[in-house]
């Protein structure tokens, strides 16, 4: 499958600050999630792909086109929904979206027709003759989505699309995003710090930490793989117990004080864990089996060198 986005040692610097450090990766799925805590470099990565910041080193390609040399061609193929409020003052929603379509090269009449369609599609049909500044936060998010899809891009960048939305509006936005990627032959890059949003909409995930790639994985494959996960809640001094389970070959991460998540290796019996706990005088207050989730992947990625948080 042809990659949608490829990075090769992409580095972005702002003065002395390295916002992205040697980021490499290759994504070919329909939907890509960008995850990371605040300041991890998610938005910088999107902005660099959009050509807003020049790379200080390395390269990136979208649909095989270089983001620096073929910037104009790439921009004709993408749609972008920014994180913050972005609109043109004094314009009705339909004029605003039509203007954005015209700037992408769609003739005036077709742009107006598509603006109406896009606004109905995102659920703003009835409000399309209102000026954008009178919209609520949720409506502003939807009009940003409408302007991003009005010209029928092949790749859509959504930067924190559920920011400031109440739960029903958030669910509607996520449903829309899933619908767009499923039916509109459109690829998606979704940047969010909300794991649930990414988990619900994306096939592949890139987790960034301090400007570097912490984890790159295919969520579908992770979901399909039948790893055995357990979650433990303990009491007592766990240091020797942890040493013991490491000797069993368990990967582990601490999700909260006294709470551990573990991946059990093939052949390890649950009774061995109980025996180790008993031997090291650790009480097991809770013991639950758990399938791998994005939260686990994220917590592992955010963990320090010894695997704990």
């Amino acid at each position, binding site marked *: 499958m042809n990659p949608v986005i490829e990075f090769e040692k992409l580095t972005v610097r702002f003065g002395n600050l390295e916002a992205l450090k040697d980021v490499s990766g290759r994504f070919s799925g329909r939907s890509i999630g960008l995850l990371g805590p605040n300041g991890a470099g998610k938005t910088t990565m999107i902005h660099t792909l959009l050509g807003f910041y020049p790379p200080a080193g390395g390269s990136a390609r979208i649909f095989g086109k270089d983001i620096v040399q073929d910037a104009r061609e790439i*921009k004709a193929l993408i749609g972008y929904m920014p994180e913050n409020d972005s609109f043109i003052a004094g314009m009705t929603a339909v004029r605003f979206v039509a203007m954005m379509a015209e700037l992408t090269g769609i003739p005036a009449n077709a742009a107006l027709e598509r603006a109406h369609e896009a606004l109905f599609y995102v659920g703003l049909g009835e409000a399309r003759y209102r000026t954008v500044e009178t919209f609520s936060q949720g409506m502003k998010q939807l009009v940003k989505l409408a302007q991003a899809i009005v010209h029928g891009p092949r790749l859509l960048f959504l930067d924190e699309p559920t920011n400031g939305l109440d739960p029903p509006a958030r669910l509607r936005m996520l449903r829309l995003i899933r619908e767009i990627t499923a039916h509109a032959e459109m690829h998606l890059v979704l940047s969010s710090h909300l794991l649930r949003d990414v988990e619900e909409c994306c096939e592949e995930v890139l987790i960034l930490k301090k400007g570097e790639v912490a984890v790159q994985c295919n969520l579908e494959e992770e979901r399909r793989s039948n790893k055995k996960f357990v979650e433990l809640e303990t009491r007592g001094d766990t240091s020797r117990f942890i040493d013991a389970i490491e000797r069993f070959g368990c990967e582990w991460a601490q999700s909260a004080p006294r709470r551990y998540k573990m991946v059990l290796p093939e052949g390890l019996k649950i009774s061995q864990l109980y025996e180790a706990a008993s031997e090291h005088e650790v009480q097991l207050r809770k013991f639950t089996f758990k399938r791998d989730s994005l939260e686990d992947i994220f917590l592992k990625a955010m963990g320090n060198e010894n695997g704990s948080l």
Partner: protein
Amino acid sequence: MAVYKHSYRRYEGDLTARWQRLLVLPRYAYRGVFQSRFFLIFFVICLIVPLGAALLIYLRHNIGALDLMNIPDDAILPINATFFEWVIQIQGSFAFLLTVFVGPGLVSPDLVNNALPLYLSRPFSRTEYVVGKMSVLMILQSCVTWVPLCVLFLLQASLAEGNWISANTRILVAILLGSAVWILLLSLLAMAISAWVRWKAIAGALMFGVFLVGAGFGETVSALFNTKWGSLFNISSMMQVIWEWLFFGGASETGETVNRLAAGQVPVWSACLALVVIGLCCLFLLSRRIRAYEVVR
């Protein structure tokens, strides 16, 4: 099918040419600008002087009409370079007022509402954005400067006897070049101010300030140091020097050579240089502000 029944579909039709996309910005801007009745009335007022000038040209060439109105021949201004320079100066002032009215609202609302990423994430560069926004002003200014003046020139040429056009080609060049310099300067200044001042009223006041404070400062410098170079801070005065040179060259209409420095004016080259420096400063200011996102280091 009704539009609300359409589901999402890709656009597969033809795309417009790159230059056509530049005109999207003025087209949308004019819808907003001409919604103001005050602006519409002012725009019409801007065209009164060229209409009056057209009437003068007509009367100048119609002795019968002058006789009917009992106006002596010599009561009407001769139609020459002085006449056109007079009209261009008046129309230049109207162009300035139009710029004060429209200019402040061009860039600042986009910066305040974070609209630049929306423009620049499309196949639309920073340069195209600046040119597109400037064209909003330049088209309006053209409508009150070189366009009516060229019409007046052609009217005079059609009514005058002999080879008036070939004898007065310099006037046409002066109209076009003089207007171009003035329009470009005003547009760049207005864009730069609009990019740095968020409030429209203050940006408009600053446009006046650049001219008035500059003139005052220039006069002070000239008086303090007993020099004529203080005029380089006075944009109107520099424009005056350039217009005079364009219409008359190094000589007055009577053919006398004019020593401009002695007459209290700076040389043409220095005025041109000063305007180029102002233009470059404006471009620098624009390049600092017209970005999708500002990087805080």
